[in-house]
């Protein structure tokens, strides 16, 4: 199991701020995205273009080749615009 968090328009398109995903073996973030796109039309729309997305694993920025382990907190969001 991993915890997924969504922010900004990713959250809006998916229609929820967080959810759980079953995960028994380590997988790349890219593989997680592939699975998530099949969950709903909202997921597919939000996650269609990885170049518009950024990700964090356990609250640190991560590339899409990074490996997610069971128990991790994974966040998906647009490029940040704070400051």
């Amino acid at each position: 199991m991993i915890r997924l968090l969504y922010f900004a328009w990713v959250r809006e398109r998916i229609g929820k701020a967080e959810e759980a995903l079953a995960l028994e073996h380590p997988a790349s973030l890219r593989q997680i995205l592939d699975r998530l796109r099949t969950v709903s039309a909202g997921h597919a729309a939000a996650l269609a273009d990885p170049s518009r997305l950024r990700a964090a694993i356990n609250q640190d920025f991560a590339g899409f080749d990074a490996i997610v382990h069971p128990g991790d907190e994974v966040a998906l969001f647009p490029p940040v615009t704070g400051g």
Partner: protein
Amino acid sequence: MPGQTLFEARVQPQPFDLAAEHTRLAALGPMVGAIVSFVGQVRDTPLTLEHYPGMAERQMQAVLDEARARWPLLGAIAVHRHGSLAVGEPIVLVLTASSHRAAAFQAAEFLMDWLKTKAPFWKQAGGEWIAAKGDDDTAADRWGDR
């Protein structure tokens, strides 16, 4: 108390108090010769700021640690607000204290550049999410990696 240091990152919905934060750094001791502050405030149109609780504080603290490793700082404070903000309201505060003005100026500018690209906040204006600016990446990149 003289000889102390102070490095603090906070995320909060309420306004911050520039003078109070400044006084905390000014009181760090007789080595403090220069204090630089930056306040960003909402320009042109009201904003709503969403953030990633936990990661926001964590990444802001990491940026402070990075500044501390690069410059001889005695203290630094970063405060970022979230929630709904009217035009003219302050969004972000950065303060740096050092013995020398060049270090305080450079560290403050570095902190702002890196916060803009590394702190997980997202601005919404008029129902639209504001796109990240290439300018901000360029500004952050000029400091290089370590």
